[in-house]
């Protein structure tokens, strides 16, 4: 007797209970509070805010807890939540020149107005596992005002250089024109820089890192210099229709990177330094730098460069940058495909039968010839 497989509902419910236990782990260990994630795994939260495309550190922390530390899963949770939020409108563009600097470095100039501000960075730590951390550490009392006294004024490096035309100026885009919005309109190629930067901003950090790295290794060589990387707080302002003037919504933390790339000139553009741009929520230097490299690589056709490398291929780069989309489609292979497989099974059987027939016929022919 045969009874067809049933019980999907019970199985799902049971699987979810099991998952909850896996997430919690050993009950003898104290449960993690989202505040702990927010405060002590803050870079993870920053990554989730970027790829989840929502600036909400508490939500990111909770998502990390729920996803057991799987940051792509966490970004996915944030994205899905984001979908349910009503949209009131667009904020005014943030002004990164007015940023309250916490870190600001330039690899192209030793000193510059506003100074180099090292800020919180792994850059000069020795990568030694700190076993003392396992037990918890007492922090030294932070000292005040080690930042330069004039740190309040830190014009962007690219603004400092723009006047002599050796570095290209900011894009000639129409300031009054509304930028596109990839969350409202599907991407249509070829795209403008607005759409490109939006796609890259929510793109997977690892993917952008690999692509950026490839441009450094000669696949679409772009000779980059880190013109400036800055981290700090900027104000977000919004103009409610009924008021007609801007009100502050508060501060957000962003990381901005401006790459400066050597450019030999082309039929369209004289030789000068060109720029790639990266921006992300929170402290995301790697992401912002990789983004700037890829942005510059994707400007190839605008600048009349030959397109020879993957990182220069707009459609390839942008269509595969979203890790929520990527992980969904890769992982959907786990879903049943009985029906399609059944159809293929039938075809293979038929082809096998034809194959055996042909082979038998050849064997018979050979036997006949031998006799």
């Amino acid at each position: 007797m045969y009874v067809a497989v049933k019980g999907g509902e019970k199985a799902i419910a049971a699987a979810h209970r099991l998952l909850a236990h896996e997430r919690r782990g050993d009950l003898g260990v104290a449960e993690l509070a989202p505040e702990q994630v927010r405060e002590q795994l803050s870079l993870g939260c920053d990554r989730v805010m970027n790829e989840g495309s929502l600036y909400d550190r508490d939500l990111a922390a909770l998502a990390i807890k729920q996803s057991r530390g799987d940051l792509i899963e966490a970004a996915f949770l944030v994205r899905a939540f984001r979908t349910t939020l009503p949209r009131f409108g667009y904020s005014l563009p943030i002004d990164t020149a007015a940023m309250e600097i916490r870190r600001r470095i330039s690899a192209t100039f030793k000193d510059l107005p506003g100074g180099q501000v090292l800020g919180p960075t792994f850059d000069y730590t020795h990568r030694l596992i700190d076993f003392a951390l396992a037990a918890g550490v007492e922090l030294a009392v932070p000292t005040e005002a080690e930042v330069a006294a004039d740190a309040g004024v830190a014009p962007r490096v690219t603004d400092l250089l723009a006047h002599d035309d050796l570095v290209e100026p900011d894009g000639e885009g129409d300031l009054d024109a509304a930028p596109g919005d990839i969350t409202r309109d599907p991407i249509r190629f070829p795209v403008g820089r607005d759409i490109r930067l939006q796609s890259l901003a929510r793109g997977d950090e690892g993917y952008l890192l690999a692509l950026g790295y490839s441009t450094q290794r000669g696949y679409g060589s772009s000779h980059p210099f880190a013109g400036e990387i800055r981290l700090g707080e900027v104000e977000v302002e919004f103009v409610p229709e009924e008021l007609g003037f801007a009100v502050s919504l508060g501060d957000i933390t962003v990381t901005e990177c401006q790459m400066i790339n050597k450019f030999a000139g082309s039929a369209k553009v004289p030789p000068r330094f060109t720029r790639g741009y990266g921006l992300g929520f929170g402290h995301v230097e790697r992401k912002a730098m990789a983004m700037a490299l890829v942005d510059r690589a994707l400007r190839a056709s605008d600048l009349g460069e030959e397109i020879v490398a993957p990182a220069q291929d707009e459609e390839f780069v942008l269509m595969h940058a979203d890790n929520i989309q990527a992980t969904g489609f890769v992982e959907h292979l786990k879903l049943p495909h009985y029906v399609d497989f059944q159809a293929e099974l039938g075809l293979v059987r038929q082809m096998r039968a034809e194959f055996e027939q042909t082979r038998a016929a050849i064997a018979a022919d050979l036997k006949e010839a031998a006799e």
Partner: protein
Amino acid sequence: MTLEPMRAAASAVLEGGPGEGEYNFAYLDEQTKRMIRRAILKAIAIPGYQVPFASRDMPMPYGWGTGGIQVTAAILGPDDRLKVIDQGADDTTNAVSIRAFFARTAGVETTTRTHEASVIQTRHRIPELALGADQVLVYQVPIPEPLRFLEPRETETRVMHALADYGLMHVKLYEDIATHGHIAKTYDYPVKVEGRYVMDPSPTPKFDNPKMDNCAGLQLFGAGREKRIYAIPPFTSVKSLDFEDYPFEPNKFDAPCALCGATDTYLDEVITDDRGGRMFVCSDTDHCEDRQASGHRGHLHVDGPAARGTVA
């Protein structure tokens, strides 16, 4: 199945989620639904044409049917009765999960009975029972572009559709016949809609292709990751691509359904033991149960309520 166990299942599936009333009807906000409805209307106006739409990130992963779910969310009303199938069955995990999602977020009635449903969301199958004029079939689509694996670039395929430049598609079919003696496509079999657009029917087996032609119900296709919606309005011509001397042929089965004895349905192969034993049963479980209930018997049918159709 009554509503209560379904609600229980919904709670199980969405365990830990927000309580009722915290989400808008059918999850998406009304602006998003309006946007999707506009895309659907455009799709209906241009049968077979892929309409780009601003697909949202859904709480299910891409590949799990986010396109179909968004289309369903956009067309669902409080009086609708929803059926969700995957591989033809109501009981597959993803079908259960999606049904529970809408039971939870929209509070609509759900059903497993094809003829009772006003909206049917499907992955990989078309129900055996012909759709009525008051029914909508919503397909989950992974790759909406029928030319994608012949030409990977969207910019190029869009031009090919615009110019009805489908020679390449026929080259592929020609090559199949030259190599295999027949068109070697068993599912995802391309069709031409109303004599104009070549369309991907989603990965349904080609067995189902004829059901799309001149169908009384409205057929909607949603591809979330690829951000496309397309449609076949009622009573539209849908022809499977072929050659005059190599006409389209649906998949065929040698055996009838072992449970209901049907000879005109798509069958699942079920492995019954580790010695090569197997049986064939209807992939459309509701159709099979209906037939059994009205007295049809296959050779492995077990009389009584223990047979297929009872929740264990």
